[in-house]
């Protein structure tokens, strides 16, 4: 549906977007996720036509739109600040596109009514945007963009200005709309929770490059490198070096544990600095020293912090000269779990199976047509 082919955009000497190739499928909810300044907004603005790429092509439904001005692209944008027209009331804001497109008066009225109903703003049709709340403004922006029946809706940090409750409601509402009208959504966000919860697929960006794209689950379970692992969810990231020993290749971490590597990948060469990624939910806490077991590590530590999260408690444990994040589930009713308090000494154990060796640096040169088609 929307395709970026090796798109590059430079601002001065810096490449804001660097040879990005990406294909977004029909009806997909796709998120561009990354810290601010990673180039995700620039990529979106190029799709909308507000910036033109220095190199590469952008295709919409197999048609080259790289040189097309924004008013001739069959996609619409929801801006971060909504960018409503302050001098027009809600109805006229929504009817702005159709008027320009020269629809008949009757059709404009019908469609505007339909959209007002869809976003539940019939009672506010005659209000000026200044008098609306953040959530209402956002729904006006949504209606204004959807009335033109775009093939793709681009959303630039659409929930950044909303509080948590409203953000959840809007997310659900957008999902519903997406099911009803089947439009393709492309989100730009720095909020990983938002991206993970709503998206079919996510592309993680940093420094103008796509580090990894895939389903939220793939990215969480199998991050491509240290950057992705650090950005998506919490992780214990241990510095280490790849060594060849008697029993084959292993990752020797600075913290101590040596993790054997069973499945070698092309980047894994002896002497390479690498990272061990261990998710907090894979760490187990226990009071007594666990019996030694092959494939299992045990470290003695002290609880430094405990954050109660309702169903879980997140512990920060000092062990082997570093802090470890561990997540303990409180368990079901009647199920007594070990929940230590701050200052307690305890044992921290984890399984080699749950350790993921990751390359430190993002990929060097991306293979052609990276960012698999859905």
């Amino acid at each position, binding site marked *: 549906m929307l395709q970026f082919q090796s798109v590059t955009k430079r601002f001065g000497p810096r490449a804001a977007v660097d040879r990005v190739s990406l294909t977004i499928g029909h009806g997909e909810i796709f998120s561009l996720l990354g810290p601010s300044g990673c180039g995700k907004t620039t990529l979106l603005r190029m799709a909308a036509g507000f910036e033109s790429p220095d190199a590469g092509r952008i295709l919409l439904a197999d048609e080259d739109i790289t040189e097309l*001005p924004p008013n001739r692209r069959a996609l619409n944008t929801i801006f971060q600040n909504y960018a409503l027209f302050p001098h027009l009331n809600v109805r006229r804001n929504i009817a702005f596109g159709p008027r320009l497109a020269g629809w008949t008066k009757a059709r404009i009225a019908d469609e505007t009514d339909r959209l007002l109903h869809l976003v539940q703003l019939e009672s506010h049709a005659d209000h000026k945007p200044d008098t609306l709340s953040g959530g209402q403004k956002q729904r006006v922006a949504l209606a204004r*963009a959807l009335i033109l029946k775009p093939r793709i809706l681009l959303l630039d940090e659409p929930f950044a200005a909303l509080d948590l409750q409203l953000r959840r409601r809007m997310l659900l509402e957008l999902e519903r709309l997406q099911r009803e009208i089947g439009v393709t959504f492309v989100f730009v966000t720095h909020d990983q929770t938002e991206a993970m919860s709503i998206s079919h697929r996510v592309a993680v960006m940093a420094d103008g490059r796509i580090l990894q794209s895939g389903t939220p689950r793939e990215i969480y379970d199998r991050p491509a490198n240290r950057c992705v692992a650090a950005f998506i969810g919490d992780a214990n990231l241990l510095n280490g070096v790849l060594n060849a020993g008697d029993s084959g290749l292993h990752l020797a971490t600075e913290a101590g544990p040596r993790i054997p590597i069973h499945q070698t990948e092309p980047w894994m060469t002896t002497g390479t600095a690498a990272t061990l990624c261990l998710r907090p939910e894979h760490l187990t806490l226990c009071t007594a020293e666990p019996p030694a077991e092959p494939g299992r590590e045990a470290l003695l530590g002290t609880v430094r912090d405990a954050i109660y999260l309702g169903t879980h408690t997140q512990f920060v444990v000092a062990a082997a000269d570093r802090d470890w994040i561990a997540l303990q589930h409180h368990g079901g009713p009647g199920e007594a779990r070990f929940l230590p308090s701050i200052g307690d000494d305890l044992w921290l154990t984890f399984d080699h199976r749950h350790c993921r060796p990751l390359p430190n640096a993002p990929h060097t040169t991306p293979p052609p047509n990276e960012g698999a088609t859905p």
Partner: protein
Amino acid sequence: MIKRFSWTATTTWLVLLFLHLPVAVLIAYSFNASRYGGRWLGFSFKWYERLFRDDEIWRALGYSVAIGLAATLLSLILGVSGALALHRARYRLRGLHFSLLYLPLAVPDILMGISLLLFFVLLQVPLGVLTIVAAHTSFCVSYVCMVVLGRLQTFDFTSIEAARDLGATPWQAARLVLLPRLVPAMVSGGLLAFTLSMDDFVITFFVSGPGSTTLPLRIYSMIKHGSPPLINALSTLLIVFTAAVIAVAQRFTKEVPRT
């Protein structure tokens, strides 16, 4: 009952009196039958009658209004485009251009008058209505530009992008989104330019030529040749007219939503 003495109220009244008493005296004296100020010889409309029969005053007023309208139109065109350029474009001389914008406000009128006169003489432009329009435009532009710049500070340029996104050409986006937001600033900037132009004496004095006597110049020469009561009557009419314009302008700006 003892009424309490209030400093605030007293000073307010004194300041108002100080500001407006001369105007009140002027209005009163325009109805004075006496030829000379100072003594009240009874109520009379005769200065007004005289005023309406004075062709030269009406010609001068005609010049002033025509010059004012022309200078307003020109400074609106230049001022709005200048404000847009200064607000949007990022270039090396931007700081310098901002200072140049403030210059006509700071430079004494007499200096501006002399320099404009030298300039026109050097270019061998015959002095007259055209040079006055050019001179007035040169300082009115600054005022219009600053008023419009102030308005642009609160304008969200993503709404232009939103309009483009919804199918507007660059021209349509400017006309449908930017222009409606600039109208209040253009009205107040335009009124400011018009009054400044109508009111200007010093600069006009230098750049006017034969057959281009504006109202302030005419009033000045009338005082020199001595007919103050006529001027009182004229000033009263001007005050009434200005008050009416201000009232209309306030009505107009109220209807436009703020921010």
